[in-house]
């Protein structure tokens, strides 16, 4: 009986099957990815909060945002955070080149470098919070090798706090990008390298003339991922400084969270979210256009 069916068509046509397969995923995406974006638009024009009646307030939230010193500071800090992007690329490429060889124990080292990536930001924040306190190990080490004259309370000094957080973000992410670059390096055809070696290329030339150009699409991908991560940074700031001292480490994600879930000003928080979304969108479109020119595919 069943065997008589036309090959490829059971009870449903191919189109129906396709939509059936995608249904659960698309419903979830619609509900938790698209709906928040759509619904936060009308919300941004109201004074919706836990207390009082909700009413339409027009552009009040946006006017308030533009004169909100903390919000402006948080945007500045989020943009400043992007400084780590080039450092991430350089260090993780060097690490990838370092672990891209078949020597004894290399698997151990690769795993070791990846461990900060798999651990929770809460755990990492706790550890580095201790290491960076004024009587912490970091000060001790820096002072004993003579790089530092007096103790710095890295995370509560307003001059160093943001940089200290950036360092933690960088440290935790290196292994992740290293693995992507390593995948890239291993896709470099071996004949290419052998041929260059026969032609007498030095190690340095091998890296600058062959490895780096072939890594280009990976550099693009990693830049995109790390840029988005930097501009949205939340966890480490939330756990370690919650924006302080003052507003020196306040990032836009943290401020949006604070307005929403600590002040319960859902309307204002949504308006801030929209503004930040536009800023991020600007960067993404810029990168995607740049990408199209380069002709590489980030996914």
């Amino acid at each position, binding site marked *: 009986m069943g065997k008589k069916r036309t090959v490829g068509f059971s009870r449903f046509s191919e189109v129906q099957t396709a939509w059936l397969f995608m249904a659960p*995923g698309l419903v979830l*995406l619609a509900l938790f990815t698209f709906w928040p974006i759509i619904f*936060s638009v009308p919300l941004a024009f109201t004074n919706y909060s836990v207390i009082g009646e909700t009413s339409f307030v027009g552009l009040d939230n946006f006017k308030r945002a533009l004169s909100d010193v903390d919000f402006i500071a948080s945007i500045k800090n989020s943009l400043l955070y992007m400084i780590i992007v080039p450092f991430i690329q350089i260090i993780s490429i060097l690490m990838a080149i370092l672990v891209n060889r078949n020597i004894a124990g290399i698997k151990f080292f690769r795993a070791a470098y990846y461990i900060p990536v798999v651990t*929770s930001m809460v*755990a990492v924040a*706790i550890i580095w919070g201790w290491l960076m306190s004024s009587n912490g190990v970091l000060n001790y080490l820096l002072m004993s090798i003579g790089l530092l004259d007096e103790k710095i309370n890295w995370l509560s000094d307003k001059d160093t706090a943001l940089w200290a957080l950036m360092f933690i973000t960088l*440290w935790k992410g*290196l292994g992740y990008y290293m693995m992507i670059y390593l995948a890239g390096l291993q896709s470099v055809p071996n004949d290419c390298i052998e041929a260059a070696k026969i032609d007498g290329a030095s190690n340095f030339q091998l890296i600058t003339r062959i490895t780096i150009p072939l890594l280009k699409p990976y550099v693009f991908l990693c830049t995109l991922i790390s840029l988005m991560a930097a501009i949205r940074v939340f966890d480490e700031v939330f756990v370690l400084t919650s924006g302080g001292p003052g507003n020196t480490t306040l990032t836009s994600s943290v401020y949006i969270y604070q307005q929403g879930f600590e002040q319960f000003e859902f309307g204002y928080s949504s308006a801030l979210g929209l503004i930040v979304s536009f800023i991020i969108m600007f960067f993404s479109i810029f990168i*995607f256009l740049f990408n199209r020119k380069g002709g590489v595919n980030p996914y």
Partner: protein
Amino acid sequence: MKNTNKAKKIISKFFVYVLLIIFAIFMMGPFLWLISVSLMPGKNIFAFPPAILPTFIDFRNYLEVWEYMDFLKYIWNTVIITFLGVTFSILFSALTAYPLAIFKFKGRNLVFLLLVSTMIIPAAAGLVVNYLTINSMGLINTFTGVVLPTLVSVFNVFLFRQAFMGIPTDIRDSGKMDGASEFRIWAQLMMPMIKPAVAVVGLFEFMANWNSFLWPIIVLNTEKYPLASALSFLNGQFSYNFGWIAAGTVISVLPIIFVFLFTQKYYMEGISGAVKG
């Protein structure tokens, strides 16, 4: 001539290992120090000069924090959340990815466009609206409410799609010849072929769910917290008791490190498959 070459090789190998070890200390050092703190109850970590290596070993911190914090409960919460998150994430993402890789159907490009646009649109403001959604679904203080919003990520869908596209078409055809339904082909023929991709998505989702702390704090009451949320709570409540916090942190970190070490061999394969595009 030959000897100098050999000597050169040994020296360069030596330098490589020195560099590898320096980086290893940089990346692993903080964790090793954490373990050493957790094993020295009563030791003040803020003494100057600080104790870096353990001078004695005592598991008292582990016993105390285990008893006081009811750690088993938090571990259980985390296990349920992670299990739900990983299983359904793999299931729904792979289901969504399959038609995008195999079929040509009307609306395929539209779905694609929607998926790509989520990569451009940031979810900065999503937290508030998602809270309201979960609330109106009556899912506050449930584990379902914790995992639901992040079950399907576009990244996972693309990774699976890439993997499905790498499977030769004869395999699906042979399934069809045997009269298997599309779902059976997917479940019994295709899914076993993309194990590396499943391992990568599994690891990423394991990480994301095991380590998530903010959304659970928003959605759940304290007694339902997973480990990471409980840890940030512990850190706020007992910030003076370093030993306990260190022990708690070690307990929360070990399982995920083990999972990583077990999935590691698939990991490179999966990553390179995902990136090539």
